[in-house]
C-alpha cells in the first residue's frame, strides 16, 4: 500500500525571503480564518476589519490612544524578549509590572511637592528596582536550585496580584485613598500632579513619555546582545549550557542578572502606567489589562528582536485600543483576543516553514522510514 507522506526536514541554509514572507503569509492566513469566523457568526468581515483599522489608526486621536495601549506592551514585550533570548522563560512580567507600579506610585506619593524631573527619575528607579527584585526570585531559584522558572514566575504573578488587592481593597495601606469616598469605594490614592509624565506632540499626535523610554530600552537591549561580551555569553548559555560551562562562563550570575533586567524593564512598564496613564494604583485595571501575558505574545511575534517588539507592540496596541473603543452591543466582544490568538497560532505554525522544508514523498511504505527511500 502506498501512502503519500509528508516529509519534514531541516533547512541547511535559512532563506532570507522566508524571514519576511512567512510572517506575512501567516498574517494573511490568520485574517482569512478570522473572516470565516466573523461571517459564520453573522458579522460582515470586511466592515468589521475596516472599523477596527479606523478606530486603531485613522480616527481623531486614535494614534494617541494606540500609543497609550502600546507602551505597556512594549515594556512587557521587551522584558520577555530579553529573557527568552537566553531561553529563560520568564512569564512573570505581569507580576513584575504590578510591583513596578507599586514602587513608582509609592515614591510618587512620598515625594509629593518635589519637582517633576526628580519625581520621574525616582519613579522609574523605584519601578525598575521593585520589578527587578520580584524577577530576582525565580532567577535565584533557577540559578542556585535549578527550579524551573516557568512555573515559579507564573505563580508569583498571582501572589503579586494578591499583594495589589491587599494594598487597595483589604488594608489601609499607604497607597489607598483613605478619604470618606475611598473607604466606601476602595481605590488608590491620587498621585501628586508633578508625578504626571510629560506628553510630547509629534505632528498632531500626543506621545506619552513612556513610549520613547521603551524605545530607549530596546536600544539598550540591542546593544547588550549585539555588542557586549555579557550579552554574547548570555546567549551561549541559553543555546548550550554545557558549552558555556566548558568555556568557563559564569552561568549563575548571568541567569540572575538577566532575570533582574527582565523584571526591571517590566517594572518600568508599571511605572509608566502610573506616570503616563493611571495616576493612582489601580489594582483592578492593571489586572484586567493582562499586559504581562500579552507581552510574551508580542515578544514571540517579534522573534525576540527588540526593535520588532516595539513595532509589534504598536500593532497589537492598535488592535486593543480599537477593540476597547468599539466595545458595544453589536460589536463582537472577545474579538480582540480571538484575533490575537489566531495571528499568534498562524505565526507559530508558520515558523516551521522558516526552519524546515516540507515535501510530499510518494511511494513510501507505511511504517518504513521514507527518508531512506529517497536517500
Amino acid at each position: 500500500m502506498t501512502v503519500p507522506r509528508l516529509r519534514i526536514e531541516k533547512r541547511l541554509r535559512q532563506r532570507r525571503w522566508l524571514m519576511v514572507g512567512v510572517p506575512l503569509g501567516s498574517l494573511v492566513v490568520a485574517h482569512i480564518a478570522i473572516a470565516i469566523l466573523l461571517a459564520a457568526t453573522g458579522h460582515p468581515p470586511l466592515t468589521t476589519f475596516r472599523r477596527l483599522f479606523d478606530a486603531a489608526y485613522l480616527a481623531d486621536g486614535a494614534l494617541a490612544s494606540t500609543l497609550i495601549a502600546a507602551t505597556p506592551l512594549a515594556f512587557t514585550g521587551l522584558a520577555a524578549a530579553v529573557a527568552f533570548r537566553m531561553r529563560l522563560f520568564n512569564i512573570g512580567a505581569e507580576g513584575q509590572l504590578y510591583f513596578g507600579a507599586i514602587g513608582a506610585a509609592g515614591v510618587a506619593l512620598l515625594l509629593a511637592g518635589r519637582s517633576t524631573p526628580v519625581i520621574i527619575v525616582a519613579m522609574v528607579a523605584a519601578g525598575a528596582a521593585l520589578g527587578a527584585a520580584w524577577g530576582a526570585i525565580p532567577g535565584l531559584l533557577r540559578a542556585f536550585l535549578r527550579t524551573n522558572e516557568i512555573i515559579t514566575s507564573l505563580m508569583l504573578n498571582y501572589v503579586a496580584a494578591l499583594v495589589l488587592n491587599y494594598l487597595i481593597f483589604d488594608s489601609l495601606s499607604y497607597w489607598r485613598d483613605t478619604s470618606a469616598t475611598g473607604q466606601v469605594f476602595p481605590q488608590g490614592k491620587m498621585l501628586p500632579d508633578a508625578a504626571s509624565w510629560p506628553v510630547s506632540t509629534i505632528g498632531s499626535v500626543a506621545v506619552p513619555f513612556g513610549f520613547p523610554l521603551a524605545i530607549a530600552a530596546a536600544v539598550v537591549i540591542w546593544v547588550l546582545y549585539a555588542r557586549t561580551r555579557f550579552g554574547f555569553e548570555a546567549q551561549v548559555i541559553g543555546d548550550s549550557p554545557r558549552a558555556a560551562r566548558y568555556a568557563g562562563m559564569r552561568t549563575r550570575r548571568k541567569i540572575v542578572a538577566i532575570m533582574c533586567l527582565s523584571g526591571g524593564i517590566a517594572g518600568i512598564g508599571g511605572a509608566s502606567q502610573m506616570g503616563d496613564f493611571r495616576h493612582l494604583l489601580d489594582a483592578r485595571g492593571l489586572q484586567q489589562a493582562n499586559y504581562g501575558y500579552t507581552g510574551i505574545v508580542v515578544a514571540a511575534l517579534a522573534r525576540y528582536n527588540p526593535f520588532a517588539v516595539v513595532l509589534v507592540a504598536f500593532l497589537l496596541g492598535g488592535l486593543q485600543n480599537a477593540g476597547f473603543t468599539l466595545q458595544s452591543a453589536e460589536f463582537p466582544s472577545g474579538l480582540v483576543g480571538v484575533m490575537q490568538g489566531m495571528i499568534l497560532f498562524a505565526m507559530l505554525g508558520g515558523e516551521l516553514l522558516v526552519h524546515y522544508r516540507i515535501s510530499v514523498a510518494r511511494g513510501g511504505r507505511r511504517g518504513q522510514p521514507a527518508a531512506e527511500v529517497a536517500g
Partner: protein
Amino acid sequence: MNNSIVVVVLASAVAYGTPLLYAALGELLAERSGVLNLGVEGMMLVGAVMGFLAVQRVGGPAGLVLPVAIGVAALAGAAAALILAFLVITLRANQIVSGLALTIFAGAAGLSSYIGNDFNLADNPARYSFGPVNLFGLQDLPVLGPVVFGQSWLVYASWLCVVAVGFYLARTRPGLNVRAVGESPAAADAMGIAVTKYRYLHTLAGGAFAGVGGACFSLALTPQWVDGLTAGAGWIAIALVIFAFWRADLCLVGAYVFGAFSALPFTLQARGVTITPQLFQALPYVMTIVVLVLVSSGIGKRRLGAPGSLGIPYVREER
C-alpha cells in the same frame, strides 16, 4: 453539628476543589505524555461557555440535558486542545508561547467571551444545574454526610475519574507507554510506541477534562455565564499537578486543599469573621513554589516523578 464551621468549610472545599480536580487530571495526562499545556484556563472557559450554551438551548428533561452539556463541554475543551496539539506536536512550536496563545485566544477576552456575547448567554441563569444529590440517603450522617454524601453528581464522577486515571497510568500497558513517552520519547519510539499518537490523544483528553472542569463552574458552582467565570482556576490546576507530584490520587488531596483555601475566606466572612483573604488565596501558589523547589533539588528529583522530557518537542530525525 453539620452546621459547624469545620463541616461547612470541608464541604465547600470539596465543591470548590472539583473543577480544579478535573482540570488537574487532564493536565496530568498531557504532562505525563510530555506536553506542558499552559492553555488550561482557556480550555476551561471554552468548556464552561459551551456547556452553558448546551444547557440553555438543548430541549428535554434535566436528566438528559445535563449529561449532554457535559459532553459538549468536554468536546469543546478537546477541540481547543487540538489547536495546541497540532502546533506543538506536529509543527514543533514552543509549548509555553503556544499555551499562552491558546489562553488568550479562548480566554476571558477571547472566544469564550465572543460566544457568550453572540448568543446572549449572560442574561439568564442556567435552566438546569447540578445540585446536591443525597447519595444513598446518607446526607444526614454527622460530618461525613455533607462532605461526602451531599455533593453533586459532578463530584461523584470526579472520584471515578481519579481512580480511572490513577489506575490507567500506574497499572495498564498504555499507561506505561504514556509515561515512557513523557520520560524519554526517543526510547519509547525505539520500542515501537507511536509517540505522536500518544501525545495527541493525551493532550486532547486533557482538554476534555479541562472543559468539564470549566463546566463545573457554569453548571454547578455559579450556574450562569459571565466573562472570565473561572477566575484563574486553570492556572491553579497547573500548579496543582506539580503540587501532586504528577500523581492522580494526590491531585484529589491537593484539589481539596486548594479548594479549602479559596472557599475559606468566604465561609468565614459569612460567619462574621474577618480575615485577610489574600493570605489564604496566596498559599496555593507559595506552596507550589516550595514543592517545585523540592522537586528540582537533588533529593526530590528521582523520587517525585516530573516527566523527563516535559515541554520538549520530539523530532525523530534530530534525537
